[in-house]
């Protein structure tokens, strides 16, 4: 800790102090640690650090210098941080990179410097398609995946009339588009609400009046808590099944509890997954942080594990790191189940459907289906990488 403090001071004063031994690895971890999505960022950092602790504070056998940075969910700030990590701190790899907008704004610098970047919370379609890059990976998902899974799930269930809702920004539109890709029934209405809107009573009244068979929503973070709380209070959870992505998950469930019972969500991970790696991860996370890990914590954890294996493979040569990461993707044991990188460096993984239910009086989640096993995202074909 003391050495870290010295290094931080030196770094702040831009002194080229030999902060670590020659073989040390420097990783930059960029996440939104303030603002309405800070819960996402915090989970990612906690997941990553848990893995590092398990590896004895080392990554790939080398002592690790971890630089945590808060991008405040602002693309400009994120870019500034990435520049600093590359130019000043000489990071070997950058992990996290927050949401799609921050990731995309930092892309030119990452490509120019040819530094390995592992996104743990985004997989925007341009990056998955024509703009795919050999040194940029996503260990999380391609953005459309979870919504596509819910669309397929709804289709398989035989639903014919579904109501769609999302905030009025790029990700919201992408999610609803993803849902419609596999859902062939009737879209009763497609409603876009204001970003960070607090009160949904007007939209919920409309929803009630439309009386669809189910409603599919995408409301990340605080928006999700607002929406689900209010929908539950209107007594709709029983009459209009709620399908969602990134709305009811490990970060929002503690604040929702009973209000979310009955909700079905699509994701590539949940603490309920029954694999030995996941059981160990969930137990360790709960012991360390006193809360259940969310999918964001899982991606952080996986990123650290992946890097550990990749650094060993690359044998300390940063030029070989990108290829090593790609290869390690198929080999490391992810907590979410089967995992490998597609040719566009997006994950090929299972997308599950989870239901929130009452397990002996306690609110918990359980797996109810795998609508898209080993799913390759629809943009992979546009990528020119080998």
């Amino acid at each position, binding site marked *: 800790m003391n050495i870290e403090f010295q290094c931080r001071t030196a770094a702040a004063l831009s002194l080229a102090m030999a902060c670590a031994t020659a073989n040390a690895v420097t990783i930059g971890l960029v996440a939104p640690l*303030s603002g309405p999505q800070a819960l996402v960022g915090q989970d990612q950092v906690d997941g990553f650090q848990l893995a590092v602790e398990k590896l004895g504070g080392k990554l790939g056998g080398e002592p690790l210098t971890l630089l*945590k940075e808060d991008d405040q*969910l602002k693309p400009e700030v994120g870019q*500034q941080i990435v520049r600093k990590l590359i130019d000043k701190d000489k990071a070997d790899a950058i992990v996290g990179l927050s949401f799609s907008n921050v990731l995309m704004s930092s892309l030119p610098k990452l490509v120019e410097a040819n530094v390995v970047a592992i996104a743990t919370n985004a997989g925007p379609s341009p990056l998955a398609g024509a703009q795919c890059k050999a040194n940029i990976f996503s260990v999380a998902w391609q953005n459309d995946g979870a919504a596509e899974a819910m669309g397929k799930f709804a289709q398989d269930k035989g639903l014919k009339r579904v109501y769609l809702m999302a905030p009025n920004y790029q990700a919201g539109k992408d999610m609803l588009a993803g849902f419609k890709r596999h859902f062939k029934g009737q879209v009763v209405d497609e409603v876009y609400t204001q970003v960070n809107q607090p009160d949904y009573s007007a939209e919920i009244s409309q929803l009630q009046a439309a009386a669809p068979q189910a409603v599919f929503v995408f409301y990340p973070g605080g928006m999700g808590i607002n929406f689900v709380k209010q929908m539950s209070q209107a007594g709709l959870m029983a009459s209009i099944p709620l399908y969602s992505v990134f709305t009811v998950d490990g970060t929002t469930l503690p604040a929702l509890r009973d209000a979310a019972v009955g909700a079905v969500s699509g994701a590539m991970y949940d603490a309920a997954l029954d694999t030995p790696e996941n059981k160990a991860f969930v137990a360790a996370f709960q012991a360390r942080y006193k809360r259940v890990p969310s999918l964001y914590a899982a991606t952080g954890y996986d990123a650290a594990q992946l890097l550990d294996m990749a650094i060993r493979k690359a044998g300390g040569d940063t030029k070989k790191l990108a290829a090593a990461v790609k290869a390690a993707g198929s080999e490391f044991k992810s907590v979410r189940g089967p995992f490998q990188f597609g040719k566009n460096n997006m994950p090929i993984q299972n997308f599950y459907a989870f239901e929130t239910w009452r397990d002996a009086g306690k609110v918990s989640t359980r797996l109810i289906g795998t609508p898209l096993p080993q799913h390759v995202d629809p943009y992979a074909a546009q990528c020119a990488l080998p």
Partner: protein
Amino acid sequence: MFPTSLRVSAALPLALLAALAVVPFVADMAGQPFWLSFFARILIYAIAASALNLALGFGGLVSFGHALFLGLGSYAVALPAAHGFAQGWLHLLVVLGGCGLVALLVGAVSLRTTGMAFIMITLAFAQMGYFLFVSLKAYGGDDGLAVSQTSRFFSVDLGAVRPLYVVAWLVLALVTWWMTHLRASAFGMALRGTRQNARRVQAMGMQPQQIKLVAYVLSGVMCGVAGMLLANMNAYVSPSTLAWTVSGDLIVMVVLGGMGSVYGPLLGALVFLGLEEVLKGYTEHWMVVMGPLIVLMALLGRGGLVGLMQRLDERMATALKTRMAGSSANLDTRAPVSATLPAQDKPGEAAWQPR
């Protein structure tokens, strides 16, 4: 002995400006390319803060919506670029025209109000701009838009950090020089007069509303130019540039530096952004320190850093005068007082006469 003609409030900012001019060379020698982009950002925000200073410091117009012009300037580069236009002059034209027009409209409506209402209405317009850009899916919306073609002026491409830095420095120097002259010019005096007593200005036959509007438009356009540089530096624009917190940051920079002064915005931007960077290096909870610092700044009164330096100058001058008064009692002392020229700016006061 120290030269009495040296005034910290004038010398220090000029020295800083000169130091900033050599950053590219120093960064090269030290092998720290990060410094170039870091200080370029400071320069750009200093320009934006200077623009706000014109409206706020000189004109007393508390605009909580200047982020609108910063954002508009940025998008004025990104939108033509998205359609394949890379000519810098075209970008500049769009910035000047776009920001000018919007500033004219916004100013005309907003200046009908004063005080709290003015603050709120400028905020409202900035928020409208924010929601507008968030909803433009074709241009990235909330995800933002990469600037595919950065501004090219003849052979100079602002997309590269070095030329951008030079241009930003030149623009800042130009703006600072212009503000110095503006402050003492007829228009500047009238503007500062409207801030203190608009009725008197009107009684003298001038139109305070028109003066304020002109100041507001100039301020908006200058801020737009800063936005243009920002877009080129990041090669990326996003609606988050139009958030109200950005307007707040600009106000902090202006007040921190010294409202109504010429060098205030530069000092404010330097200290604010520099402090942010240093604090971030120590703790991820840097805001819990930054917040009270801003509060302290507000409590300590206006004048900001420039005011502090001016008070320092006055103290030095008084100290010097007491020295001179003390030594003039010993009239036969003809010690070679090398630099003690009675060069002070208080007219009508008898200079020390050597015997």
